[in-house]
Every structure is written in C-alpha cells, then in structure tokens.
C-alpha cells in the first residue's frame, strides 16, 4: 500500500465502523432483540478467541471453559449473593481471567498441537468439576438468574434495556480487542506468530507476551459468558462443553482467521444458521457444522471476510 492511499483507507475503515455501530443502535427495532443479544455474545466470544489464534497463532481448544465459568460465577453472584448485574459481570470476567492465567501458564509450556490438546484437556477438567459440584446445579445448570437492575437503577427485565447493555459490553470488548491488535503489543504478538525464534532473539520475553494474550482473550471470553447468563437467565452445562470450544473455532475460521471483523461475521452466520436449522433438521445440525468445518479447512481458509479483503485488494491493484 502506498503512503498516499493510507489516509483514505483509514477514513474508509472509520466510516465502516461508525456505520456498523449506528446499525447496531437501531437494530433491536427491526430484529428480535434476544436473538441479537445472543449474536453479540458469540461475536465477542469469537473475537476474543481470534485475538489468540489469529494474532498470536495459539489454538486454544478450551475456550468454553472461560465462557462457562464466567457464566456460572456471574449467575451465582447475581442470584445467590444478590449483587447488581454489573458487579456480576465484572466478577465473572475476573474469574475467567484468573482461570485463563492458570491455563496459560500450563499450556504455553508446549507449542502447536500440544497447546491445543492441553487447553482441551484442562477445559474438560473444568467441565467435570462444574458437573460434580453442588453449587452449579449439575446437569440442570444454574436456573432462575434474575437480570436485576443495572447500577441498582435500570430495570433489565426490559429487553430493549438489556439489549443496550449487551451492545455496550460488546462494543467495549470489541474496542479492547481492536486496540490490542493495533498496539505495539499486538505487533509483537504477530511477530511471535510469524517467527518465534526471531522474536526471542530480538529480546522479547515471548512467554510473557503469550500469557498476556491468553489472559486478555480469556477475560473477554468470560465477559461474553457472564453477559450471556444475564440474557438467558441461566448458565448451562453446554457452555463449558467442548462442543462450544469447537463452535468458536468454527465461527472464527468461517468468518476469517486473523481478520478483525471476521469472527463477528462468522458467529453471526453460525448463530443464524443454528436458529434456522434447529427445528427443521434436528440432530443433523452437528453434521452440517462438521461439513462447514471440512469445507472451510479444505477450500475456504481465508474465510468470508478474508475473501472479501482479498477481492478488494485485487481490485485495488488493477
């Protein structure tokens, strides 16, 4: 890209993001808010996951643990301790971050495929713990979580109020990810992804950066999970199941690995698909998800947003 075209490209991105932001503000008047809220939760979840895989090159196959744990913590805090929703969300996020720190310390001791297997195994351990301890309600999950009043003032049982809270949470989370990627820290992550030995030889403490990225990603996944519990007023066992970990990988891959908007686009596609298909095809949903996975890996590795970007670039060169 030449220096002259850079400012215009920057303005274009700004216009794009502002347009999308305004669209999000008016969306609940056109589309069923609960569906939108679910979509934003998964979009944030997938974006947090992408920060790790797309920008640091670390494949975590256990991200459901962060989503689920934060969901349970938030649910317990709001329902049984009686705190306001924002404290519940905060508590869930912090717990997910701490769990991410523990996972991170263990998993970064190995790389590549082992990293994925370790995170998967650790997440499975969390699943069994959640299944067995009494506080989480075992197979029934945590039910009857009240949405409560935000800051003790705004009644969240109103779907529109809840929507704007979710939208605010998503926007903040997305902004954090955007800033992280575009900061010097994000650049170092990319350097580690591209060539780890070189990053080490340049004097960077690679493990420290990986761990930081892991904690940020886990916290934001937790933020999504805690918010999700408030929306649906329950935390369920499926949130910590490895299927959910797999789903977030699929969303990111389909949308475009390592692109900023990709995970959001991918999760929107998958959530919509699941909503549409659930009644019609029953257990074939898994087969369809698996097929999308296979097709993405074999023939569509850039994902939706990645393909669009490539098209734009090709058009620009001509």
């Amino acid at each position, binding site marked *: 890209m030449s220096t002259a075209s850079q400012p215009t490209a920057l303005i274009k991105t700004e216009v794009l993001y502002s347009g999308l932001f305004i669209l999000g503000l008016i969306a609940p008047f056109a589309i069923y808010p609960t569906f939108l809220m679910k979509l934003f939760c998964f979009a944030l979840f997938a974006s947090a996951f992408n920060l790790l895989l797309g920008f640091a090159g670390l*494949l975590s196959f256990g991200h459901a643990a962060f989503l689920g744990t934060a969901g349970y913590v938030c649910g317990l805090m709001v329902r049984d301790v009686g705190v306001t929703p924002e404290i519940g969300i905060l508590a869930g996020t912090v717990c997910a971050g701490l769990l991410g720190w523990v996972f991170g310390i*263990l998993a970064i*001791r*190995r*790389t*590549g*495929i*082992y990293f*994925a*297997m*370790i995170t*998967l*195994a*650790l997440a*499975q*351990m969390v699943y*069994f*713990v959640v299944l*067995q301890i009494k506080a989480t309600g075992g197979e029934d999950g945590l039910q009857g979580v009240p949405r409560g009043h935000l800051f003790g003032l705004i009644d969240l049982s109103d779907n529109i109020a809840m929507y704007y809270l979710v939208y605010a949470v998503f926007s903040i989370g997305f902004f954090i990810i955007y800033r992280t990627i575009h900061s010097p820290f994000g650049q170092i992550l990319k350097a580690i992804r591209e060539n780890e030995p070189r990053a080490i030889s340049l004097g960077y403490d690679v493990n420290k950066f990986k761990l930081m990225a892991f904690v940020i990603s886990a916290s934001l996944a937790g933020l999504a999970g805690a918010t999700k519990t408030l929306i649906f007023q329950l935390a369920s066992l499926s949130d910590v199941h*490895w299927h959910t970990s*797999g789903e977030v*990988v*699929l969303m990111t*891959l389909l949308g475009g690995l390592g692109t900023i908007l990709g995970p959001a686009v991918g999760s929107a596609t998958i959530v919509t698909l699941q909503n549409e298909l659930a009644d019609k095809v*029953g*257990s*074939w*949903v*898994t*087969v*369809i*998800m*698996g*097929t*999308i*996975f*296979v097709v*993405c*890996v*074999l023939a569509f*590795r850039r994902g939706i947003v990645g393909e669009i970007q490539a098209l734009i670039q090709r058009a620009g060169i001509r």
Partner: protein
Amino acid sequence: MEIFGVPSALLGSQLLVGLINGSFYAVLSLGLAIIFGLLNIINFAHGAQYMMGAFIAWLALTKLNINYWVALIAAPVLVGLFGVILERTMLRKLYKLDHLYGLLLTFGLALIIEGIFRDQFGISGESYEVPEALAGGVNLGFMFLPIYRAWVIVASLTVCFGTWYMIEKTRLGAYLRAGTENSQIVQALGINVPLLITFTYGYGVALAAFAGVLAAPIFQVNPLMGSNLIIVVFAVVVIGGMGSILGSIVTGIGLGLIEGLTRVFYPEASAVVVFVIMVIVLLLRPAGLFGKAA
C-alpha cells in the same frame, strides 16, 4: 480380606477396570502417536473411528448375524479403508499447511461421523452380548475375573506389542521410522512415501476400530462413546509424549491403573485424575515423560 481398609474384591475389580481402560488408552494413544509421527497431524476423528468400530461389530451381529471373531478382523479393515479414503481425498491436501489445519479438519470429520450415527441410532446406546467362548468367569479367590475382560487386556497388549515389534524390527517399520525423521530423504532414496503415509493413517485408524470392537461388549455401544474417551487419550498423549511407542503403551496402562485406584479411594476425583496428572507432568517435565524436548 482387606487391603488398606478396602475389601480386596473391590480393589481387585477396580484395578481390573483400570487395567481395561488403560489398555484402551494404550491402543488409542499408540494409534495417535503413529499417525502423528509420520503425518504431523493429531487425528481428532480417532474417537469417532473407535466408535465406528464398535458400531460395525454391533450392526454385523444384529443385522447380518456375523459373529464377534469375524467382526474383530472386519471392522478394523473397513474403518481402516475408510481412513485411507479420508487420507487420499482430504488430509493429503493439508500437509504443506500449518499442522493445526489437520486437527481442525479431523475435528470436523468427527462431528460429521458422530452426527450421522446419532441421527441413525439415537444416544441411548445398544448392548452387545459377550461372545459365547469368552462368557463366564473364574474365581481367583480374592476376586471374580470375567474371562472377557481378561481377553480384552491380553488382546490389546498383543496388538500393542505386535505394533511395536513391526515398527522397531521389520523393514517396513524401518521405513516408517526413517520417514518420521526425514520424509524427503526417504523419498529421495526411492521409497514411496505418500503410500507409506496412507498406509500409516489407515493402520492407526484400524487400531482405533479394533479397540472399539473390544469395547463393544463392555461398554454401551453409543455414538458418543468415542468423543468422551478421546479427550482423556489426548491428556495421556500429553503426559507420555508422542516420541516413543513403548512410552505410549506404558503411559496408557499406567494411567488406567491410577484411575482405577482413584475410583476406590476417592471416587469423586476419578474423572479428573488423568487431567490433574497432566498438570503435574507439565509443571515438572514439560516435554512429557517419554518426550524429547521441543
């Protein structure tokens, strides 16, 4: 008779269950290790292929009246051929890419296979009769030993050591080991490496199906039987490291026994004990018990 305040019959039967689980861990992690050695791919579909083995045996018995012994050979062959097709049509295209894509592809395949079986057979599970020749049991004085369970252990160990012998002592095994070290040079020496890779994947997958047939009379034949097992096997592989064939066998059986002991002394932890050991091993010996430092 009591040992550490636990009735010996209980201790014995749980150790036996542990040994059986350990044999399955050993066969499955061995297959994963062989595939990983040559293809650099973690076969996430391993659990689904194990489940396919069990289902083929069950279908053969109930629909076609084909007995256990035929199924024990036929199911691994069929699933192995299925693996060969997967390797030729899909996996082959990914060798030049990041290894993670292999994991993702096989994960997708596992979802497809499991979804189809779930749609066809539900999740309630089917039971498979123990073959007549292996029915009944022996009273060992301190515990009752069902013959089929003893057979499972013997059969898995035989297959494990047979595989070890083939890899360490035969010419084919030598090609395989050389291919694991440096496949380009092996190819330059005139050996058909792509064929070797296809064979290896097929063999690893066949091992999974073999374990599946062995498991059919013990566990419920259920579309989800593989996915829960495979995550534990991943932990086993992380603990043992995939560098050594004997290492995977020993680690698999050892962890099965530890799991069995945990079930006696602290049953609540039996589901997570393998993962806890994984954590400890990662802290003390990050490369795994038998692994080479990366």
